[in-house]
């Protein structure tokens, strides 16, 4: 117990080492700083994957450790993206509008510039006024604060309402799914102030950095994503290693018992729910400048379910499991759906992976749930020679999110 944090958690060191080596390798192979072995678009894909790993970490904390199967964390992720996207789009449009007005006889007034920006951004939904929610869009620090505040407050209010009335288990999952659906439907409206189903676009052009080629930008964002992932990983490892981790795992397995120990279960759930929502939002704010476009379809409930799928396939209840699951499944998914996977000719029928990948994913997910509840992370236990206490497969406690005995790390 008196050993240092890192000594007690060797996986953190291994993880950081692997992440650093990976980042270095990609940098040395990039077009901007290395041998140009990997394309800029692939660097972006990898950077986005790191962001997905980051949101998977948040999901693992809230589901794997506290047992809340949230189907709303991709909504927080997308909201974070929207918040940063507002600044990116506003500032970028401002540059364009100012450049266009520079040729006019009179210098533009602030009002004219704002009007120009509003027409540029909102012409597509038939409006020419900036909605009130864009009041801070001109300021990067304010929008960065909103990246944290908007999803954080939403999670806080929603979590407070849900946990206060002791909604648990699948009910909570359905409720979070409903929240996600409500947010998505709201954003789909043209008068939501966020351009309806057009979403925000052109986010890959960073204001003030118009001269920097995308090859450089992509590697910068790749670094930022890696840094974010590393920092959050260490932070969460620290959070779950101490007594706090002990309490939240106890809540997952038997929250009633934790109450009788004097811990306010609702406060802990709310804390973790909000914390992970903020992490998800930060991941989203790093993701969407690399993706270039965000629209309400990103909030669809199915995205959050995929998030749960990644964590489950990677192995819930262990942080590196979430990262591996997210990286593995999302990269595999883009390989299959990108049309790069070779089709299989069966003679009578050609299996085209673009059409069949979803089916493969769905079925393999069922198989993982049934036969490999520890997911890919379980392989590490095999490597270390650990064996699951192969007794019954009973849950470790009465909580809906409780680990099963065969899931537990010995």
């Amino acid at each position, binding site marked *: 117990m008196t050993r240092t944090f890192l000594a007690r958690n060797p996986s953190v060191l291994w993880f950081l080492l692997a992440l650093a080596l990976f980042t270095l390798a990609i940098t040395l192979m990039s077009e901007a700083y290395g041998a140009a072995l990997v394309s800029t678009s692939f660097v972006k894909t990898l950077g986005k994957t790191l962001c997905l790993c980051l949101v998977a970490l948040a999901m693992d904390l809230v589901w794997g450790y506290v047992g809340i199967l949230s189907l709303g964390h991709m909504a927080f992720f997308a909201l974070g993206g929207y918040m940063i996207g507002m600044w990116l789009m506003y500032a970028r449009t401002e540059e364009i509008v100012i450049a266009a007005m520079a040729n006019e006889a009179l210098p533009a007034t602030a009002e004219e510039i704002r009007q120009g920006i509003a027409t540029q951004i909102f012409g597509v939904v038939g409006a020419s006024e900036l909605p009130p929610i864009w009041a801070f869009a001109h300021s990067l620090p304010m929008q960065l604060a909103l990246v944290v505040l908007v999803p954080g407050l939403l999670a806080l209010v929603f979590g407070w309402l849900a946990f206060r009335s002791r909604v648990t288990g699948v009910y909570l999952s359905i409720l979070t799914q*409903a929240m996600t659906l409500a947010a998505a439907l709201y954003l789909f409206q043209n008068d939501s102030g966020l351009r309806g189903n057009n979403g925000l676009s052109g986010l890959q052009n960073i204001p003030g950095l118009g001269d920097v080629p995308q090859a450089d930008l992509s590697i910068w964002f790749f670094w930022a994503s890696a840094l974010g992932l590393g920092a959050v990983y260490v932070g969460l490892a620290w959070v779950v290693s101490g007594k706090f981790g002990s309490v939240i795992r106890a809540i997952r397995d038997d929250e009633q018992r934790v109450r009788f120990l004097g811990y306010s279960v609702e406060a802990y759930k709310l804390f973790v729910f909000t914390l992970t929502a903020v992490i998800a939002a930060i991941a989203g704010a790093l993701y969407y400048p690399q993706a270039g476009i965000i629209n309400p379809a990103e909030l669809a409930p199915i995205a959050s379910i995929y998030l749960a799928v990644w964590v489950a396939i990677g192995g819930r209840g262990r942080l590196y499991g979430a990262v591996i699951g997210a990286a593995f499944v999302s990269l595999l998914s883009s390989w299959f759906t990108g049309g790069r996977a070779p089709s299989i000719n069966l003679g009578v029928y050609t299996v085209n992976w673009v059409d069949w990948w979803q089916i493969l994913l769905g079925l393999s997910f069922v198989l993982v749930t049934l036969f490999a509840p520890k997911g890919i992370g379980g392989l590490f236990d095999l490597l270390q020679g650990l064996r699951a206490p192969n007794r019954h497969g009973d849950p470790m406690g009465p909580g809906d999110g409780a680990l099963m005995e065969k899931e537990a790390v010995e």
Partner: protein
Amino acid sequence: MRALAAAIFAALLLLSPLAAQAQTAADILTANRALVEKSSRQTIGPVIETLAASGDPQAAAILSAWADKGLGIRKSDGAFLLISASGAGYALTSLDGSDAGTAPKSDITELRPNAGVRGLIATALVQFQLSDPDRSQREAALTAIARDASPDHLAPLRASIPGEPDAVLRAQKQRLERLLTLRFDPDSAARVAAIESFSGDMGLDLRAALNPLVATTVMAVAGDPPAGTNIARTLRPGTDLTTDEAYALLVAAGLAPARLTRVDLKAALAANIVDGKVAGTPVASLNTPESRDRAYDALESAGRVPAAATDAEAAAAAAAHRFLAVYAEPDPAVTTAAKDLLDSIELKLATMQAADLALDALSLASIYFLAAIGLAITFGVMRVINMAHGEFIMMGAYTGYVVQQIVPNYTLSILIALPLAFAVTFAAGVAMERLVIRHLYKRPLETLLATFGISIALQQLAKNIFGTQARPLTAPSWLDGALVFNDIVGISYIRIAIFVLALVFLGVFLWLMKRTRLGLEVRAVTQNPTMAASMGINPDRINMLTFGLGSGIAGIAGVAIGLFAKVTSELGSDYIVQSFMTVVVGGVGNIWGSLAGAVMIGTLQKGIEWLNPSNTLAAQTYMILFIILFIQVRPRGIIALKGRAAGD
């Protein structure tokens, strides 16, 4: 009978400027040759009226031929003839109806009446149609008048009423006559009487006739309004309309000069740049509205630009004028009567709309109930979360589609599709229960995720088989149309059928659970599987059957939903969240709860849509928010199990 009608026409038209006796059509046309050849709307009216009133049995045929460019003049003798294209020339008919041989095109001058003249002819023809021996012709004439009434129709319509043999048509004519009277009769008292005669009525045609009477326009006047202006009310700038709107009205009425817009101001400044300065102000500093105003003022005092009204001047100009909402209809007695009638209609209309809304809500509720009732079994009774439930609905709908491809008779195909959809989804449900869910009882979150995996696989499978475009599932023709109570309240037969289907399911469910051995065993197994097993019930079999039953009902619901929604691979996911909401809001484990949940969600959604009709997305958003808040008040749903049975 016809002779009588014609006599009345003739009598009515005695007052027309060309004193008309019973002449032949040819005489009339010849007598007014100059007018006819160079016909114009202003001058031809009396000729057409005389012709219509002539009593010549061919008059109607001649008039309609004229309007259709079927009347010509033979160049050789100037005779009017009915012409129709025949080979390279015309087949000719003289005006008394006898055949007049043929002639090459070059021998005939075709009369080409313009649109105005054709309109006059059409109006004149109405009187013939209104008294036409063919009932369908009379009906068509009535429809034509009702669609596009003009004051000219009033007299012929009135004249045709006494001779109308058909009671139904006569009633229609009388109603139309009153509608035309209230709009076009020159006598104010007659109009008011006509309006008041409609008291208690609320037909669409009546409202369409009344609304133009009470339509207002806003006008600006200096001092008193012109005499005879029928004022609805006076508007005050600042409260009833903004100062900008008021000023725009003044500009439109020519009572004030146009405002200087920002764009004009900028152009004026740009036109006056001298050596990088505008009226002494450097161009670079003209980047605020204030500095631009100052520069313009400087230019204005230098006399280089026209004077522009300031905000204060605009406000003063607005205050100095009166703004009136004025009826287009000049007669105040008529507008008052019309307004009173419309107000009373409005009240009744609101009641009817509420009734219609209730019907809409009920039908939406039955759709939700139908979608949710399978869940009420799998989730409500067995506590198994089945995210693939929506895909079972989809499978049911596609089953219906496939059956329709094979069996072309829609009635028969639906009758086959319903049990077949049940069988297909029952089998799918049983397979899923055996292969997956059985291993995950007591692990609801894992069940959720595993069934979600199945859900995405099934969705993609449907896409691969049926493609992404929507497939039609056509209802049999006897389900087309709607049960219409009046202009406002109506419900389509499909929705009634779905409502009935929902009721049937409710009945079947209650019967199954409360009255059958299977129901007893299901309840026993769900309450205490170990105990049930020790009493000789096979829980495996019961779970399998129950799950299959819930899935099978989803399949039938799929056929029903497919009848009015497009069948796509996403059909199920559109309903899944609402279905779960229905069960959760109603109270898990209680079919009446699901019913109450469906009714609540349906009513709520329709209610919100009614408050904000332009935006159904917002309605769904607010509905979900409401449900989240509702769960706060009643975490266990509307009908909750209480006490220890409810568990923790």
